[in-house]
């Protein structure tokens, strides 16, 4: 079998020094100045002058909808979107139909990911059977399956019972798992439609108060401390949550936290349009929350960016606000939104970007072959970004089936030029190339 190799010329590694990168046999074969001679014999040369080379992005929070809601997204369409967005691995949330609460379902999703070949698909296992919060799912069976599940979450629904949460946190220690909590106190958010505050008061929409998120995070970090477990907090959305996580980390509690691109850029003021494309859970918050989240991502209080990519069919959004589904697409805009909010603002460097979008999420998910440094011998999961490009977000032009992008019509910086997944270019010239063929190499 002939192994295609690629020579990436003059890329700026993590936005720092310029170097050539030789990709061969799925790994980074060499990194250096002016690589040439026999080493690059037969390699396809990619001129990466002006481009930033980053480790392939890893999303800890993606809804691929399959099985069950193939009208909204499939593993194939969702992972195409991921590759175009610069990702080489995504974690598929468990709220499919049937729920990913057994070894059979997680292996099905994992297998669909392998067959698609655009990125690694790591299924997230449900914490409780049917996401019902009443009985632990077979976490061990999912961990031992071919999908090797390490992240467990009832995302979309909070594990609100404190005893259930305690048991889950304890149990997954047996296989180094982590509970990713959707922090939402259910009684405080019954019927909630948007952030509770200045705007909800005027619009007459039922409020989703910050305290409903913060009280669960406070409880969970104390539980994690008590039983010595790993806790991951999904989509942190309030300034108060940031303070609690900062406090917990200061106490040495093993907690990691995530923020979505949309919570880094958008505020509740958009709800005044009544357009349900801005309806999401947790809801868009106030300006002061957005700035606290950016500062927390920059100083490491929040560890990672997770997209919470949540595609919906158009009829789920072309309706009254209260009747609309919650969620936004995010895979194809994440890089640009994070560049806009964190790099253009001067809060972070591209090296920081690589930490929060690749190395840290891979570490939380215990992925050994993702989020690695761009060094010889490492798996060739690489994304090339043109940081000077600007583009207008057009949901109709996206690979995801979801047209529910809250960034539609916005001009954003940064374009993914190429994505290398296991050494294979899934994206070239900003367009899908071909998938990686598992088992063929």
């Amino acid at each position: 079998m002939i192994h295609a190799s690629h020579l990436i010329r003059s890329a700026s590694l993590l936005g720092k020094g310029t170097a050539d990168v030789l990709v061969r046999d799925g790994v980074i074969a060499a990194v250096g100045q002016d690589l040439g001679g026999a080493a690059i014999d037969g390699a396809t040369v990619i001129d990466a002058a002006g481009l930033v080379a980053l480790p392939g992005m890893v999303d800890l929070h993606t809804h691929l909808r399959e099985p069950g809601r193939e009208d909204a997204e499939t593993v194939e369409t969702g992972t195409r979107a991921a590759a175009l967005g610069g990702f080489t691995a995504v974690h598929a949330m468990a709220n499919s139909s049937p729920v990913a609460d057994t070894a059979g379902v997680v292996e099905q999703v994992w297998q669909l990911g392998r067959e698609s070949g655009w990125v690694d698909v790591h299924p997230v296992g449900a914490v409780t059977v049917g996401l019902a919060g009443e009985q632990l799912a077979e976490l061990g069976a999912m961990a031992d399956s071919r999908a090797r599940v390490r992240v467990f979450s009832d995302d979309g629904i909070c594990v609100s019972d404190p005893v259930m949460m305690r048991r889950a946190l304890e149990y997954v220690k047996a296989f180094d798992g982590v509970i990713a909590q959707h922090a939402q106190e259910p009684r405080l958010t019954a019927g909630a439609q948007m952030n509770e505050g200045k705007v909800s008061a005027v619009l007459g929409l039922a409020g989703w108060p910050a305290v409903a998120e913060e009280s669960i995070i406070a409880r969970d970090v104390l539980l994690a401390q008590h039983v010595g477990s790993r806790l991951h907090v999904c989509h942190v959305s309030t300034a108060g949550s940031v303070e609690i996580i900062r406090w917990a980390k200061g106490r040495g509690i093993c907690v990691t936290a995530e923020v979505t691109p949309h919570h880094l850029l958008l505020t509740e003021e958009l709800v005044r349009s009544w357009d349900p494309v801005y309806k999401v859970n947790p809801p868009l918050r106030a300006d002061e929350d957005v700035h606290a989240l950016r500062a927390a991502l920059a100083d490491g209080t929040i560890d990672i960016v997770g997209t919470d990519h949540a595609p919906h069919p158009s009829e789920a959004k072309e309706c009254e606000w209260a009747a609309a589904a919650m969620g936004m697409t995010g895979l194809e805009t994440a890089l640009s939104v994070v560049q806009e909010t964190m790099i253009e603002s001067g809060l972070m460097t591209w090296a920081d970007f690589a930490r929060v979008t690749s190395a840290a999420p891979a570490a939380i998910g215990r992925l050994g072959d993702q989020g690695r440094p761009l060094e010889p011998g490492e798996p060739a999961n690489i994304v090339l970004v043109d940081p000077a490009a600007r583009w207008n977000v057009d949901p109709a032009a996206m690979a995801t089936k979801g047209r529910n992008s809250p960034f539609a019509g916005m001009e954003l910086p940064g374009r993914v030029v190429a994505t290398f997944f296991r050494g294979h270019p899934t994206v070239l010239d900003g367009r899908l190339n071909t998938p990686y063929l598992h088992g063929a190499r």
Partner: protein
Amino acid sequence: MRHLLDTESLGRDNAIAILDTAQEMSAVGEREVKKLPALRGRTVVNLFFEDSTRTRISFEAAAKRLSADVINFSAKGSSVSKGESLKDTAQTLEAMSADAVVIRHWASGAPARLATSGWIDAAVINAGDGTHAHPTQALLDAFTMRTHWARLTGTPSVGGDLAGMRVLIVGDVLHSRVARSNVWLLRTLGARVTLVAPPTLLPVGVEHWPCEVSYDLDATLEAGVDAVMMLRVQAERMKASFFPSAREYARRWGFDDARLARLDALALKDTIVMHPGPMNRGLEISSGAADSPRSTVLDQVRNGVSVRMAALYLLLSGDMKAVPTPALPAFAQPAAKDHP
């Protein structure tokens, strides 16, 4: 201005234009032939996703007095109850060439969605959406107050506003689209509004509203008031612990006979008592207060038709802002052709 969706975005000129036009319209209701030809050949659809006989018949009377064709479309007994979307319903009405859609909906923002989504070209009038807005109710309340205020101050009501008027809005503000619409409209017209409610029935964020807030009805009455607007309270709210019991609510926040007598003791002889209806007698308002000479409840109902005629006429006759205040020649002539 093509639609009437809320009062927050309703400017003073347009608000006064509606009130002044309503005053012209009210004269029509006094005639033997209560009809004008203004909207002949136009179609008004009453699209009601929520039961409200009072509001629907008020809009129906308003449209018919302007000679419009009226179609009543209620969610019950229509395809809506079989799961048709708002979008499809709207496009169906569009295909039937509706000129105006009067919409009542359980979901906050549904009228705005209808007006801005591109599904429909008709003028949209919000007849109450969720807990968001009820602009024609606020306009009829303001109309009622303006008539009273003009009489007291000895000024003509046409062209006038509510400058200096002290208004209390009492009760379940949290769930009230009437309160939300009144706060902004009355403020726009120069009134000083105080909300009085149990803290549980005020929205978080109310501190940003252009009004005062109090938990103490008696203290706000003592401070002097020109109009007291009581809001309907659902007794079931006590089940969600918004207040301990209906009796405790009535004692602390109800306009009872003792408070009615207190207005006399305070020499507030011109203070009116308002209610948007339907009333819970004995809960938020006593029968003594509801039936007293201070009560404007029936005036409000009567004025509702005039205000809705004004809103329909102004929206369907073109840019509301361009409408000059009272001069409406069409109303000078009786509708002889329509009613032989």
